[in-house]
């Protein structure tokens, strides 16, 4: 498959977009003389889950940080919903706050405690409100981080390799949890990952970042709920891996 020019790509994306929650135009970011993002155009529709694939150092996380408003030195136009939440690769819980206070961080309004308890129950940690982060396992901590995002009822969820640091079994459970939460809350999400299977499993669309621009836009049309052994995945996986420069198997040339 040939690489399509970027302009083509966004045109195709916006054509099928009902309401865009994320609109980024011409995002550029350089670290010193090295450009990392070289004019990225990105649109994410309401309720759409977009996976951002790319090899290590391709600028995936940089793009996510720009969208999260954590990068003051990037240029370009970026529109994101006010209700956005971020889940990082590390849980980033404040060790001096109990689980409930971590989830409630910055949450205002009525019945915060009730909403926190509901969010914790949704990620399978009901009743752990009083625990210290240090008492939790890696997977549990990451669940709390997801609850901290959920309690804000985000229109957009920004996920930076959220399950990348977890062991394989925990990762599978977290992916299932994400699918369930997504079906329930219908948030839009940008999922930065280097795991092709994870992208296929969770995303409606896979974007490939290479050389600072989005070089591929692959819609994933397999019906939800998905499993990694769904029939349509084989060719897609091989194609994405080839685009990432990885041979699909030991017999590949």
């Amino acid at each position: 498959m040939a690489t399509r020019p970027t302009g083509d790509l966004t045109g195709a994306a916006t054509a099928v977009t009902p309401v865009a929650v994320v609109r980024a135009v011409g995002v550029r970011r350089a670290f010193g003389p090295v450009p990392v993002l070289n004019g990225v155009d990105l649109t994410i529709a309401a309720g759409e889950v977009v996976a951002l694939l790319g090899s290590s150092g391709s600028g995936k996380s940089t793009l996510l940080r720009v969208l999260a408003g954590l990068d003051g030195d990037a240029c370009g136009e970026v529109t994101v919903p006010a209700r956005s939440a971020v889940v990082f690769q590390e849980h980033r819980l404040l060790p001096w706050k109990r689980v409930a206070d971590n989830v409630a961080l910055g949450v205002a309004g009525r019945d915060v405690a009730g909403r926190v308890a509901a969010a914790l129950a949704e990620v399978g940690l009901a009743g752990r409100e009083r625990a210290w982060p240090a008492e939790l396992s890696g997977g549990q901590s990451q669940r709390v981080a997801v609850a901290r995002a959920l309690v804000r009822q985000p229109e957009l969820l920004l996920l930076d390799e959220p399950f990348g640091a977890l062991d394989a079994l925990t990762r599978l459970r977290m992916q299932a949890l994400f699918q369930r939460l997504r079906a329930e809350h219908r948030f839009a999400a940008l999922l930065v990952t280097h795991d092709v299977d994870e992208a296929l499993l969770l995303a409606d669309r896979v974007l490939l970042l290479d050389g600072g621009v989005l070089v591929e836009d692959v819609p994933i049309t397999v019906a939800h709920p998905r499993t990694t052994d769904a029939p349509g995945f084989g060719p897609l996986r091989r194609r994405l891996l080839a685009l990432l420069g990885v041979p699909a198997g030991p017999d590949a040339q």
Partner: protein
Amino acid sequence: MTVTEDAAPRTGTAAGAAPKAVATVPVRARRGPRVRRWRRLVSPVVLVLAWELVSRAGLVSPDKLPAPSDVLAVGWRLARDGALGAHLAQSLTRAVIGLAVGGGVGLLAGAVAGLLRLGDDLIDPPVQMARMLPHLGLLPLLLIWLGIGESLKISLVALGAFFPIYLNTYAGIRDIDERLVEAARTCGLSAAARLRHVVLPGALPALFIGLRLAFAAGWLSLVVSEQVNAQVGIGFMMMEAREFSQTDVVVLGLVVYALLGLASDLLLRVAERRALAWRRGLRAT
């Protein structure tokens, strides 16, 4: 696994006696310190007893070193006639005011230098230079500036407390994980809220180290300044006693200083354990 010889049998008895225990390791950890705490008392008690015996036997003249019981007796006498209380109150007042002033200024300066780049550039260089000066060496200059009154003693204590508080506040703020601050930002926390929820609790462990060092430096400054020239205070009591060769009162003063240091350290430990309760979880895992 290396198990010390006396630890192994203890595990067995403790595991049998405590069915609540989840694992054998914490059981041993709980039983061990209690025995060790008593064991650690043995040598100090033996030393005091030896001192008492040596004094009683007349091997050391009471002018050089009175027996511990004599020191206790003179302490009791001075406590009853109110002299000890008056000296102690004056010394404590100096310590508290000095620590509050020096600690407060140190905290403020450390926070400004730690949080703001401009503050760092303006405050840190002179403080780092002044830090190299042993603050007790300033005594002659302070005597010229402030005379021999209360302000001299309070200034010296404040100077002693300032540097450890400043340095540890600064370091504590600088050592905060930037990723946590970032996460707080994505949660919509304002700069003031980040200060309260992330920076302050994150710098607290370092601040407690600073406090402990400040207490130690403060007591040292107090001892020195009270022996220079004072009308009241534990140090004055000791210097006066020296003139009259009341060695028992001199030793009593030392004991009071030691107890004050011990009490302040204990107080700080309790406060630390309460404020840093979240760290206990860290230690458990």
